[in-house]
């Protein structure tokens, strides 16, 4: 019994570890990424995203560089943060730590669930932004009984993580179609088959994931929108400065014959 347990765990870990490497490769040329909505300026969407993040992601993943009280930037008060988002008796100035022990997580899933502070920045690539990847990834989980967790993912094939939002989305399965283009036959998703309904309609689910991904994008760089606003003023100032410098230069140089 003990040996079986060990070997099963070992195989599970091996599969998950393999999945991570294969997944990284597949992210280059695999399933195309959908365009994520950008709601980093939409406070209601960000607050909903933050709620989903704390309820679903923070159980296993950390966001170790993100402090809870930074959520004031998306319109929450310290009291609201304390009442609704702090699960344990932590302080609002704490960083977002995972509920489970990372070591245990490593044993369960074969790899430590990565920290999500800057996940949206790190996942960008030739196919789109990091938000595009995450938006596609969170919407392409499917039932696959051949996998240890019972779940697989189109954007991240052979993933070690189960579909944590499955209650919201329900069970789904992609229906593939062979497409021949330039002499290469590839499997393309034709449509999705809903095996059992979730608590949300597909449209509601896409909206929720859009909010979550916008939150992740915002959390990757909380200053991003302030940066752009300041940048406009900086460029206006430099435009005026450069104009004056240009005229000053011309005033001096008119003497040079």
């Amino acid at each position, binding site marked *: 019994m003990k040996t079986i347990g060990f070997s099963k765990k070992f195989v599970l870990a091996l599969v998950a570890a393999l999945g991570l490497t294969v997944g990284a490769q597949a992210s280059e040329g695999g399933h195309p990424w959908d365009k994520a909505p950008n709601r980093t300026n939409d406070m209601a969407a960000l607050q909903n995203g933050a709620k989903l993040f704390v309820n679903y992601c923070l159980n296993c993943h950390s966001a170790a560089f993100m402090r809870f009280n930074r959520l004031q930037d998306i319109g929450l008060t310290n009291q609201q943060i304390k009442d609704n988002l702090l699960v344990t008796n932590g302080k609002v100035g704490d960083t977002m730590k995972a509920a489970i022990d990372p070591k245990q997580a490593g044993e369960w899933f074969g790899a430590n669930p990565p920290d999500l502070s800057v996940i949206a920045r790190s996942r960008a690539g030739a196919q789109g932004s990091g938000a595009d990847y995450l938006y596609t990834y969170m919407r392409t989980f499917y039932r696959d009984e051949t996998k240890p967790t019972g779940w697989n993912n189109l954007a991240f094939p052979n993933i070690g993580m189960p579909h944590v939002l499955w209650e919201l989305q329900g069970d789904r399965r992609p229906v593939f179609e062979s497409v021949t283009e330039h002499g290469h036959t590839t499997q393309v998703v034709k449509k999705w088959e809903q095996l059992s309904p979730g608590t949300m309609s597909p449209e509601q689910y896409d909206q929720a994931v859009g909010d979550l991904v916008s939150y992740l994008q915002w959390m990757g760089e909380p200053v991003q929108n302030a940066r752009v606003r300041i940048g406009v003023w900086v460029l206006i100032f430099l435009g005026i400065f450069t104009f004056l410098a240009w005229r000053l230069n011309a005033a*001096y140089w008119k003497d040079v014959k």
Partner: protein
Amino acid sequence: MAEFHEISPNASATEKLVNWVDNRFPMTKLFKEHMSEYYAPKNFNFWYIFGSLSLLVLVIQIVTGIFLTMNYKPDAALAFGSVEYIMRDVPWGWLIRYMHSTGASAFFIVVYLHMFRGLMYGSYRKPRELIWIFGCAIFLALMAEAFMGYLLPWGQMSYWGAQVIVNLFSAIPFIGPDLALLIRGDYVVGDATLNRFFSFHVIAVPLVLLGLVVAHIIALHEVGSNNPDGVEIKATRGADGRPLDGIPFHPYYSVHDVFGVGIFLFVFSAIVFFAPELGGYFLEYNNFIPADPLKTPLHIAPVWYFTPFYSMLRAVTSEMMYVLIACVLLGAGLGVVKFKMPTIFKAAIVGFAVVVVAMMLAIDAKFWGVVAMGGGVVILFFLPWLDFSPVKSIRYRPSWHKYLYAVFVLDFLVLGYLGMLPPSAIGGRVSQLGTLFYFGFFLLMPWWSRLGEPKPVPSRVTFVAH
């Protein structure tokens, strides 16, 4: 030594203060020598802004670097987090960090353009050889500075880029493995490496860099600036002994440079505030994943400014070695047949070529790749003694020289582009050709630069009043 100068008791307080200082430190003298009475040619064009912009970027890097150092932790366990701490919790930390990361790329852009200007107008030729050599040394120091600085954020690209480059040193015969160990301070890139790179990045290399910049400017002000016509303005002086085509650096070029600084800062700020990652070129996406010694990224690419030289490294394969051996033999053969010299010299050339070929056959191609990468930079130092053209400036060279320079620029850009991509069969062939062209351009310069009929060089600079 200057005489002690008494000033009238009726002079203003400012005059008295200046006089007090001047009797103890050559303040006014230095200002005159380097600013208000430093005569620069009046025909500088767009290309002459990049020298002062390099100085500006150096100042930006030093000042932002000082503030980053206050909050950064050179510790493998803390480094990545401390950068995010700067980005999130340090007031204006994000701005300081983005200015520093954008400044690194901006530094290379302005320095590459500055070097290309020198190449075009023959600014490295007599009597400006030392200015050029100091400049090349600055470029080399800058590469070291950028390479070591890139390790500090401790992301995946930081880590694996350093791992790949330091491993290159282990390809050097005999001393290589020990040398790589000495650089890393460990068997893999680790905490010890991070600490020593931090030390080099914040103090050792900047000190060298500052010293070289001072030497570069002193040498420049000793001989005076070249100009787009390659005409020596000191050859034509007025009755007062001042060059007729020269104008005081201050105020003419100081206001000129302030205008250039305005345009530069506009572009620089646009990147800092609106696209600090610049599509993954200035901040690589993978570098937002903390360094993991157990997970090698699929594609390790250096930052864009190193990629032309990285292409040269990758171009030298064992196959390419045969081409290079043929080049050595051909060069030695031509030397023996074409030139009249005592037999003993010819024997020496043949002997040398045989030794080089033997080494090329005996030592792994990887080592010669490292030689090519380093040689791509080192060869620049020799430029003043490779160019035998009767005229300095591209303006008065035979027209086909311009096309050759254009191909050279294109070659450098293509090598840079290919260096960013994962290796491929076609890319490999193109970078091999590109590498041969790059070295051919310099090594054959003593011959091709003499060819063709130069255009007549005017005795005075060409200038159209603004």
